[in-house]
């Protein structure tokens, strides 16, 4: 089952953290988040919300925020979780770590707004999301092949790059793509087909064995 492989690492985090009365079920958190990413599952989001909201509220208050500010941190952080769920990779780290980085960024930008009256949301530049909590990333990636693939993709026309990157690198579904790019499904599919045939021609069919 696909959901299980996505959460393997989170499962092992649960198994390894033997500390005292540690009750956090990392695998369950990861499955909820995966359900949000792949099915926009509101029930899963509700579970996740009830798990994190009181904790985030408490942390925010312990850092000297008012009740209103603390609630803002809760809403902003979990709003981000809903909108960014597809960017989470369960094989790179725990859901708790990922949510922590989002909470940290939200808090940082809010504080900057209060102190310097700046709304420049610098957090995403200081802590780029792609790098958030990436540990042991290099285990299964073939850097050379990746580099070559990326170089070839960069040569595609802009509109084909867009669908290829969104579909394969960010794992967006056809439906998400139609909504996001505001294009009919047919156009998305034909752009993908076109881009893939160009990639095949560039890289040679021999590279295709893994995906067939």
């Amino acid at each position: 089952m696909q959901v299980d492989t996505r959460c393997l690492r989170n499962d092992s985090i649960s198994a390894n953290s033997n500390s005292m009365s540690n009750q956090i079920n990392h695998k369950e958190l990861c499955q909820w988040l995966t359900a949000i990413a792949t099915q926009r599952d509101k029930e899963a989001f509700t579970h996740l919300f009830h798990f994190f909201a009181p904790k985030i509220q408490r942390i925010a208050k312990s850092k000297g925020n008012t009740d209103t500010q603390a609630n803002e941190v809760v809403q902003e952080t979990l709003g981000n979780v809903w909108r960014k769920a597809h960017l989470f990779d369960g094989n790179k780290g725990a859901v708790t770590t990922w949510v922590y980085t989002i909470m940290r960024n939200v808090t940082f930008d809010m504080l900057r707004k209060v102190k310097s009256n700046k709304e420049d949301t610098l957090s995403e530049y200081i802590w780029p999301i792609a790098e958030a909590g990436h540990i042991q990333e290099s285990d299964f990636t073939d850097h050379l092949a990746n580099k070559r693939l990326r170089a070839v993709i960069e040569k595609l026309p802009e509109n084909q790059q867009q669908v290829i990157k969104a579909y394969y690198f960010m794992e967006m579904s056809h439906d998400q793509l139609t909504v996001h790019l505001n294009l009919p499904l047919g156009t998305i599919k034909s752009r993908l087909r076109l881009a893939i045939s160009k990639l095949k021609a560039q890289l040679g069919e021999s590279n295709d064995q893994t995906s067939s």
Partner: protein
Amino acid sequence: MIKHHPKFELLQSFVNGELPASLSAGIAIHADMCSGCQEKISELTEQLSYASFEEAYLDNPMVEEAGTLHNADDVNFDQVIAAITESNDIDVVEPKIEKNITFKDEVYSLPSVLNNMVLGKTANIGKISRARIQLDENEIHSSLLHIEPGGSVPEHTHNGFELTVLIAGTYSDEAGEYEAGDFIMLDKQHQHHPISEQGCLCFTVANDSLHFTQGINKLLNPIGAFIY
């Protein structure tokens, strides 16, 4: 090889989001070039996240109360959930943009953390050029500092702290040679005279002016606040 790294405490505050934007950017620039610190940051993030969401609550007598957290009067969780899930929009990560910056006809690629920051006009004194980064952090000033080949900053101490992250090129002072990626944090106790034979570009953060210490250069003290 990079020899100068942020102290552990500084990395910890960085991960926790407690540092001002200027110092956070300095650490981000360094970590971008230093895989060792990158790894430490990942580990610290993991540890701090566990500490935040797990251990902090276990021995806390308030835990009982947490279960009955004021969902009712403070904020209605169901309403918040409904408001968030109303929209099906998702965030897309924008591809990294490579920006360049030019000082005296030398083109440098700008560290990506600075992409979104506003740069002031470049000011020049001799072989030194400086562009302020407009972060509006009161007494803390951040700049890009360029030294042309053969240029130097007169011997000085610092009235506050002075952070230099070397982006490109090399420079040296009494304490040794520095190269791209080095993270050099100095304070009042340090007196130095940086020289760059081949030229360099630095990201600098200081919370007060420089204090020039020698002979005729003392006359420069009014402009000490200008350079950094």
